[in-house]
């Protein structure tokens, strides 16, 4: 697996949404490459298409024209079934509002994507242990999400996203709902996952200061990248 390079390539992507009878274009001709192991922060005003980029890369939305290719797989050519399977193996999603299952404990939430793997119950349990350790929630296994703070819930969200060991993490405003301190902890955790575990991370954020953990930051406006900066601290 590690021999394959999971470079992300968007090529001449045209994307539009229907609005009444006409369609409003979001991207008219978007081309970009995100190399394997990158930590990219995407900023930009609301409605500029940041979430849409993540959705296209994660295979939960499809292009109208153009191509999205990741590690050699052409997402626009895959069937829904193949795409679902591919996503469960390659992509981890982190949401702004965590989106945890309210009736499942922290450990069970993390275990959820592992139900789709061939791992035995014992192997799953061990994996969940390790991951909750990594995100610093070793002592919160059996807590329901409602009993956890926002920062802790987002750690569970990240743990769930990396449970099946995906190469790419897509984070849509992961700290948007958190106070400064919790946000910083989450950002450090993401940086750790990037530097130590080599995950490619694409993070959408509205908060300038959170881009410091990224290797690169791009600014999106009206479907175009208007500037790109390489982070100094990378």
């Amino acid at each position: 697996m590690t021999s394959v390079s999971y470079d992300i390539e968007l090529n001449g992507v045209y994307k539009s949404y229907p609005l009444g009878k006409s369609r409003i274009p979001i991207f008219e001709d978007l081309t970009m490459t995100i190399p394997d192991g990158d930590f990219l922060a995407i900023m930009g005003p609301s409605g500029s298409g940041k979430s849409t980029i993540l959705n296209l890369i994660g295979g939960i939305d499809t292009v109208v024209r153009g191509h999205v290719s990741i590690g050699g797989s052409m997402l626009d050519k895959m069937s829904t079934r193949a795409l679902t399977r591919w996503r469960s193996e390659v992509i981890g999603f982190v949401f702004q509002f965590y989106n945890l299952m309210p009736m499942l404990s922290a450990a069970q939430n993390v275990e959820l994507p592992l139900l789709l793997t061939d791992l035995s119950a014992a192997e799953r349990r061990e994996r969940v242990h390790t991951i909750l350790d990594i995100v610093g929630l070793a002592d919160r296994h059996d807590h329901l999400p409602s009993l956890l703070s926002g920062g802790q819930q987002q750690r569970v969200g990240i743990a769930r996203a990396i449970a099946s060991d995906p190469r790419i993490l897509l984070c849509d405003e992961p700290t948007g709902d958190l106070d400064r301190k919790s946000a910083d902890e989450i950002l450090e955790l993401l940086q750790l996952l990037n530097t130590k575990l080599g995950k490619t991370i694409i993070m959408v954020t509205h908060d300038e200061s959170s881009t410091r953990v990224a290797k690169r930051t791009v600014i999106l406006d009206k479907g175009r990248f208007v500037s790109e900066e390489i982070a100094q601290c990378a």
Partner: protein
Amino acid sequence: MRLSPSLLIRQNLTRKLLRSILLILCIGVAFFIFGVLSSFQQGFKGASAQTSRLVVASKVGGNETLPLSYLPEIQALNGVADVTHITRLRAYVENERNIVGANAVDLESYARVYSDAYAFSTEMLRAAGADRTAILVGRTLAERMGWSTGDTVTLTSFVHARSGGDRNWRFTIAGIFDGAEMTTDTSFLLARADYFHTAVMRNKNRVDLFGIQPKPGADTQALAREIDALYANSGAQTRTQSETAFMSAFLEQFANIALLVRLIVGVAFATILMIVANTMIFAIRERTLEIGVLKVLGFSGGRIMCIVLAETLVLFALGLCLGLCLTAVAIPVLADALQSVVPGLYLTPRVIATALALAVGFALACGALPSINALRLPIAAALKHR
């Protein structure tokens, strides 16, 4: 606790426990209504089961009787395979409110003519043949009275006195017979006609009915007309009907009430299930975001659908069990109270099977409709759902 699809289903059902319980109760009540109503329907149908038999009664009706001497004449008619005669004892046990159906019959021909309705074993017929005061008792009646074979019972007739004026008749039970089907009415007993007509003081050899088994393929309507024509000019004119018509004439007096009850109850059943379906559909629609998240995690549409369907199936299964248990408890009580109106009131396997099929159908529909909608929604849109 170990995470598994079944745990997921259980947690989903218990997270709004009150709602789940209320849904199960509603489904239970709906199927209770359904169970009782269908059992009534079956009971009515059972009482007027399809048969080619004819019944000859007095044209005057009421308590008028026919001479037993008609029997060989009817027997001699072309379309008649077999004929038997029936005399009502019109009796009670112990007190006048405790009326029991009791007929004096020629057991041998009766068993032949009614062979498809009641199961008379050769042993019980032989035992009854050996004792003039023997009676055979239907299972339902025996259970109601707590009688068993060998018991001696005393029936008091409202009208028939023995020579000497005594209206008490002592009989010995020679056997308990069953109906051919669960819903067959067996709430009566059969005494020996030869004994009765010898012992009775007045109206010897006058019978209430003749039961006729026509030859296969015989035109029963023509046969009925032929019999009535035969006695048109005699002292005791006859009225010959199919057994079905004879029974439904009796049941007709309840028909309008039955229709009304059926309507009201049917509407109640449908309404409750509609409310249940509506609630479930909304409950699942509430989970559109969750379904979107599961899809993001890599759960396929089929897998998610299975989880949702399993949930609605469990709810309906529990509700169905509750409803059928209530029905099973209620039916014997109702059967006792409505003994004379619906003799064969039972919860039959057929009713249970229909209820099961309905429950499965409703569960699948209630689960499939909203989850198909949620699954069709693009994931990106589902994720915006709050």
